[in-house]
């Protein structure tokens, strides 16, 4: 048996059972328990939508640097999280751990935005930003707060338009919203991140649902995440019931939602277990009870 000559490890000489433990040349294959597999159906690597937005932003706005702002990225993360909470697996009960972690993330963002003072303002012009297409690079969010404090944050807006120079940072969002409405007619074709692209066409179900969520959030106090769920009748709408109840495929009118849930029997359920895109509308209606 070959001997190791790692330095200073006399204790290993005595115990030969794991002397070779991490000598990788000693690990060999005993059996492969498989036939040909289908696992090549997934393409190698992942498509990272997070970073796709960066290309869109680069060079399109005068004065903007190519890295999206912290606020923008944070907003993007919030949008993504809310969409994730909605889009649960349709047939099977959603994973409670995942939902709780995402909800906690939403709360965190919300708290921070409330402290920043950006929370209320965001909702005023959120409709243009809520599109999935504009998920931007959020790698800033992956950096530690320490790195952020070292000044890698928000690029200067001062070059954007002289009317908005010297704008303090917390007003930037509101200023940009004004800019949006001014800019849009002038440059409708530009790939402007603030612009509402083809506003009517993009307002599919996702858009509408997110808008409704944001309306709810806007109208309530902080801690609106709880309100997301508190609008509904508690006796039937624990978190788990909401998350699982939304999987119910019964299509019903807007006003009948609560009534029919209280008298729900199995016969109410659709026989087919698949749901279509209108499911999302239905889910949001339950949540916002508007």
């Amino acid at each position: 048996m070959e001997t190791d000559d790692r330095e200073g490890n006399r204790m290993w000489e005595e115990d030969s059972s794991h002397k070779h433990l991490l000598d990788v040349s000693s690990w060999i294959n005993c059996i492969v328990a498989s036939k040909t597999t289908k696992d090549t159906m997934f393409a190698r690597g992942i498509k990272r939508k997070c970073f796709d937005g960066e290309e869109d932003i680069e060079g399109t706005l005068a004065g903007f640097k190519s890295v999206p702002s912290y606020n923008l990225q944070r907003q993007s993360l919030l949008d993504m999280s809310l969409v994730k909470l909605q889009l649960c697996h349709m047939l099977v009960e959603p994973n409670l751990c995942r939902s709780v972690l995402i909800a906690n993330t939403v709360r965190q963002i919300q708290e921070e935005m409330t402290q920043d003072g950006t929370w209320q303002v965001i909702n005023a012009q959120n409709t243009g930003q809520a599109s999935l297409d504009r998920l931007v690079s959020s790698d800033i969010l992956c950096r530690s707060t320490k790195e952020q404090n070292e000044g890698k944050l928000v690029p200067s807006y001062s070059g954007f338009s002289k009317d908005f120079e010297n704008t303090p940072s917390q007003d930037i969002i509101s200023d940009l919203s004004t800019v949006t409405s001014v800019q849009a007619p002038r440059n409708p074709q530009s790939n402007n991140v603030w612009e509402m692209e083809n506003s009517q066409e993009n307002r599919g179900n996702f858009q509408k649902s997110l808008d409704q969520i944001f309306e709810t959030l806007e109208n309530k106090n902080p801690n609106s995440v709880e309100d997301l769920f508190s609008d509904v009748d508690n006796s039937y709408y624990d978190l788990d019931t909401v998350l699982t109840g939304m999987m119910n495929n019964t299509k019903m009118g807007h006003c009948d939602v609560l009534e029919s849930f209280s008298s729900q029997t199995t016969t109410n359920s659709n026989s087919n277990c698949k749901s279509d895109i209108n499911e999302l509308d239905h889910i949001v209606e339950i949540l916002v009870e508007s």
Partner: protein
Amino acid sequence: MPEGDTGWKRAFEADIISTVEFNYSGDLLATGDKGGRVVIFQKEQENKSRLHSRGEYNVYSTFQSHEPEFDYLKSLEIEEKINKIRWLPQQNAAHFLLSTNDKTIKLWKISERDKRAEGYNLKDEDGRLRDPFRITALRVPILKPMDLMVEASPRRIFANAHTYHINSISVNSDHETYLSADDLRINLWHLEITDRSFNIVDIKPVNMEELTEVITAAEFHPHQCNVFVYSSSKGTIRLCDMRSSALCDRHSKFFEEPEDPSSRSFFSEIISSISDVKFSHSGRYMMTRDYLSVKVWDLNMETRPVETYQVHEYLRSKLCSLYENDCIFDKFECCWSGSDSALMTGSYNNFFRMFDRSMRRDVTLEASRESSKPRAILKPRKVCTGGKRKKDEISVDSLDFNKKILHTAWHPLDNIIAVAATNNLYIFQDKAN
């Protein structure tokens, strides 16, 4: 291959493997899959006369443990995917294991039959009853050998005790009881009793809107039958003593590492969520797996772990992408070697990592078709984190995040490991064996 070697047998393809577990002797290896099937492999007796023979694992038994069900009240499917398998210690010729899906735990008996009786008085060889008036003489049936048949039969079904999804089961050292844990509750069962279980932990808030933390894993202490631990999605572990009260909502010990404020991000909580907790064989330590690291805790010290190993720190800068594609929620398991000197856990790109605790060394290996040729020696892999990529390194951006190794198992006595890569099972052995 040396002459005379009959070749390595291949076990058949299973669906996506969802759990892997050696039994107490290591002779049997059970896998559960997404289709609700359990496949048990048995180590062949080593044949000393064959030069390069070593124990192969061949299929021993296959059975359908769980079927898909439908919850009519909620209009939801209950997946048949096997979440966990745990063996019972062997007490007679038969083997027993517990297998569970999201809602129901089953106790299976796996027994061998290699003889059958011939020469019955009351029935023919083909089973038809004989006319009693035709029987003129009595004979004693004779046992004759037959081909080995392995039968699996469900002996107990423990159902309807969990509202949420079961993530863990753990057999107690008393060999009479076991616990099952779901997202919010832990129940204690007696193996003989199926219509009752005791709830020993309940973290469900009165108002579900206040829910911010769930149970992610639970395990009994290997020697102290009154002690168990459970981990949470907030990165904490609670150790409970069942002697202190019937409902163990109040922990005896609370393990949590203080957060480093300089590394805080929106993803801090998610990556601190513990996906697996395992006691060491000695019972002195426990190991936890969170998204980026493996930590070893001394049960006598609650303030911080005694050892921390980075599994794939290069993913820290990619957390947002991993959040977007949901990979950040992947639940990796971890395991101890038989002597507790090494740890193993999985990663992406079919990589898995082994850590030698005493020598503070670690290695990355790959479970793949290239390394799957029999007796091929595994080459250590390295992920390039930036800068120039060396020849055999792979860059972070080239990693395949669909190829994840979530389930690994280490033989309790020998250096044999089982690694589940999606729907393939790889068994590796230290050639020094």
